[in-house]
C-alpha cells in the first residue's frame, strides 16, 4: 500500500475550522455592539499569526534563534508602503514582491548564522533589529523618518479593503493559507532537514544535509512570512512608524512561540492568539481592578505580566499550550488506565 500524501495529517476538522473562522465576525456582530474593536484585535492577531508561524519554522524547527523579527516586519511594511504609494505598483504585486525582498534580507542575516549559533545569533539578530530601525529613520526621504508614514488602503483585484470588517476576511484568508503552507513545509523534505539541523548539526551534516543551504533557506522562508505579515500590517493599519517595531515586539513574538509551544505550527497560532487577547482584553480588565488600590502605568504592568507568563511557561511547561493540549488528549484517550507518574 502506498501511503497517501496527506495520510499523516488529520484534515477532517480543518474545513470546519475555516468555516468557524469566517462565520465568527457575523456571530460577533450579532452578539455585541463593540464588535469592531474585537475585530481590530483579531486582525492584529491574524497578522502576528502569519509572522509567528514563520518564526516557528526558524526557531522551533531549525533551532535558530531570532530576536529581530520585528525588523523583518518593519522592512516588509515599509517596502510595501514605498512600492505601492511611491513607486505605484498594484497591491497584489506588492504581496508577491515584498515577501521576496524581506526573504532576501533574511538571507543576508542568515549568512553570519552559518558560523555562529545560540545566543550569538540572538544577539546578531537583535543588533540587526536596532540597525534596521535606525536605517529606516536615516532614509527619511522615502520612509518619513521618525515621524511615521501614512499608507494607502489596499485594493485587492478591484475590491477596496475599507474597514476592519473587510480586513478581517483578507487577513484570515492569508493567515489560514500561511498555516497550511507552513504545515506542508514542515512535513516535507525541507522540514525534516530543518528538524535534523535542530536536533544535531553534526549528525545532520553527516547524513548529507547541506547545512549552509538549509539554514539560509530557513531564514529566507521565515523572512518571507514576516514580509507577508508586514505588507498586511502596513495596508490595514494605514500608519506605520518605527516606534512600533521595537525590540520588545521581537521578544513578544518569541514569547508567543514559546507560550504556544516551540516546534509546532498550531502551537504558534495558539500562543499568538493567547498573547494578543491577553494584551488587549484581559490585562486591561485586570488593571482596572488593580488600579483601585495602587497606581499603575499601563505599559509597565503589561510587560511585567508577559515576563511572568514567559518565565512560568519556561520553568513549568516548556512544551507550551499545544503541549498541554497534547497531554490532555492522551490523558483522555487512555482515561481509566493512566499511569500515575507521567502526568504531573
Amino acid at each position, binding site marked *: 500500500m502506498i501511503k497517501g500524501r496527506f495520510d499523516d495529517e488529520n484534515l477532517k476538522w480543518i474545513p470546519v475550522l475555516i468555516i468557524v473562522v469566517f462565520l465568527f465576525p457575523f456571530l460577533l456582530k450579532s452578539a455585541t455592539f463593540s464588535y469592531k474593536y474585537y475585530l481590530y484585535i483579531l486582525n492584529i492577531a491574524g497578522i502576528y499569526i502569519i509572522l509567528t508561524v514563520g518564526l516557528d519554522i526558524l526557531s522551533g524547527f531549525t*533551532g535558530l*534563534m531570532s530576536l529581530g523579527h520585528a525588523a523583518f516586519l518593519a522592512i516588509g511594511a515599509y517596502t510595501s508602503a514605498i512600492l505601492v504609494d511611491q513607486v505605484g505598483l498594484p497591491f497584489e504585486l506588492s504581496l508577491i514582491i515584498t515577501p521576496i525582498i524581506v526573504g532576501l534580507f533574511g538571507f543576508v542575516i542568515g549568512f553570519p548564522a552559518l558560523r555562529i549559533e545560540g545566543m550569538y545569533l540572538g544577539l546578531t539578530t537583535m*543588533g540587526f533589529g*536596532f540597525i534596521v530601525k535606525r536605517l529606516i529613520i536615516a532614509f527619511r526621504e522615502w520612509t518619513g523618518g521618525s515621524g511615521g508614514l501614512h499608507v494607502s488602503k489596499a485594493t485587492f483585484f478591484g475590491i477596496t479593503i475599507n474597514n476592519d470588517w473587510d480586513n478581517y476576511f483578507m487577513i484570515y484568508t492569508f493567515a489560514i493559507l500561511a498555516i497550511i503552507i507552513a504545515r506542508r513545509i514542515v512535513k516535507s523534505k525541507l522540514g525534516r532537514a530543518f528538524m535534523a539541523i535542530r536536533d544535531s548539526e*553534526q549528525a545532520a551534516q553527516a547524513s548529507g544535509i547541506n547545512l549552509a543551504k538549509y539554514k539560509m533557506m530557513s531564514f529566507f522562508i521565515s523572512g518571507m512570512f514576516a514580509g507577508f505579515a508586514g505588507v498586511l500590517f502596513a495596508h490595514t493599519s494605514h500608519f506605520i512608524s518605527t516606534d512600533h517595531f521595537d525590540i*520588545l515586539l521581537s521578544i513578544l513574538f518569541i*514569547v508567543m512561540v514559546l507560550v504556544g509551544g516551540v516546534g509546532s505550527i498550531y502551537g504558534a497560532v495558539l500562543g499568538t492568539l493567547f498573547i494578543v487577547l491577553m494584551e488587549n482584553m484581559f490585562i486591561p480588565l485586570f488593571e482596572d481592578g488593580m488600579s483601585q488600590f495602587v497606581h499603575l502605568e499601563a505599559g509597565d504592568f503589561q510587560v511585567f505580566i508577559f515576563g511572568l507568563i514567559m*518565565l512560568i511557561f519556561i520553568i513549568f511547561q516548556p512544551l507550551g499550550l499545544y503541549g498541554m493540549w497534547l497531554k490532555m488528549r492522551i490523558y483522555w484517550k487512555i482515561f481509566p488506565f493512566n499511569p500515575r507518574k507521567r502526568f504531573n
Partner: protein
Amino acid sequence: MSDLFSGLIQESISGIALGCIYALIALGFTLIYKATEVVNFAQGEIMMVGAYINFFFVTQFTGMVGGLNGWVFLAALFCSTIFAVLFGIVLDLIISRPLKDEPVFSIIMATISLAIILRSLTAMIAGPISLVPVSPFGDSTIKVGGIVISVLDLAIIISAIILMGIFFFFFNKTRWGIAMKATSEDSEAAQLMGIPVKNVYRMVWVFAAIVGVVSGVLLAPRMALLDTTMSYLGLKAFPAAILGGFGSIPGAVVGGIILGIIETVSMGTLSFHFEWIKEINDIIVWIVLIAVLMIRPDGLFGIAKVKRV
C-alpha cells in the same frame, strides 16, 4: 589640527570610563558564562536595579544624617552591596536552579523574561518620574595640559581596575576561584572531585549581582537622569564581551574599553567632521558586533572551541 587632537584625547578618556562600565557589565556575564554556560541577558537590568537601590539608600541616609557627605555614599554603597548578595541568591534560586539541564534557548529566554520583569517592576515601584542621581564628586575636574578630565571618570576607571584586579586574583589564586574554573570546564567531573557545584553556581550569581550593582552605582552619576532606559546599556555590553572573546575576563575588559572609545569618539569629534556618522552613532556598537562575528567569531582573546559530538 591640535584642536581635533586634544578633543580626541579628551573623548578617549571619557570613552575609557564608559568602556570600564561596559567592561564591568561584561565581566558580570562573563562570570556567569564561565561557570554555568548560561548567558545572562538581565545583567543590564541588575545594574539598573543597583543604581535605583543606591539612589534609595543615598536619599534615606541623607535624610537621617541631615546632609550629604562622603560617609553617606560609602554607607549607601555598603548597603547596596548587601542587597546585591541577597539579590544574587534569589536570582540563583529563580533562574539557575530550575533550569539547570534545559537547552540554551530556554535559559536565554528565561533571562530575557527576567530582564523584562525587572525593568517593568522597577518602573512600577519607582514610578515613571526620572530621578536625578547625585555624584559624590560633584562636577569637579582636573586639568592636565589643556585636557579636562572629570574626577568621576577617573573614579570609575580606578574602581573598575580595582574590581577587575580582585576578580583576576580571585579566579586564579583562591580555592573558590579554582573551583569555579573547574566547574566551568566540566561540572560533572567537578562534582565528582568534591566541589559543591550548587554553591559555586550560587556564588557566581552573587558575584555577578555585586558587579552589576557596583557598575550601576558608578554609572548613575554619569547619566543626567536615572530611568529604566539605563538597562539598554547592558545590551550594549554584549558586543563588548564578544569583541574581546566571550568568556574571557581580559577580553571583556579590552573589548569594553575599545567599544567605549569608539562610541564616545564617534559621538563627539568625528560627528562634527563627518556628516554621515551622526546617523549611525547609536548603532555603531551593533555594526561592530556583526562585523566581529563575521570576521572572527571568537573575538580577540577567545579560543575556538572544539565541539564534541
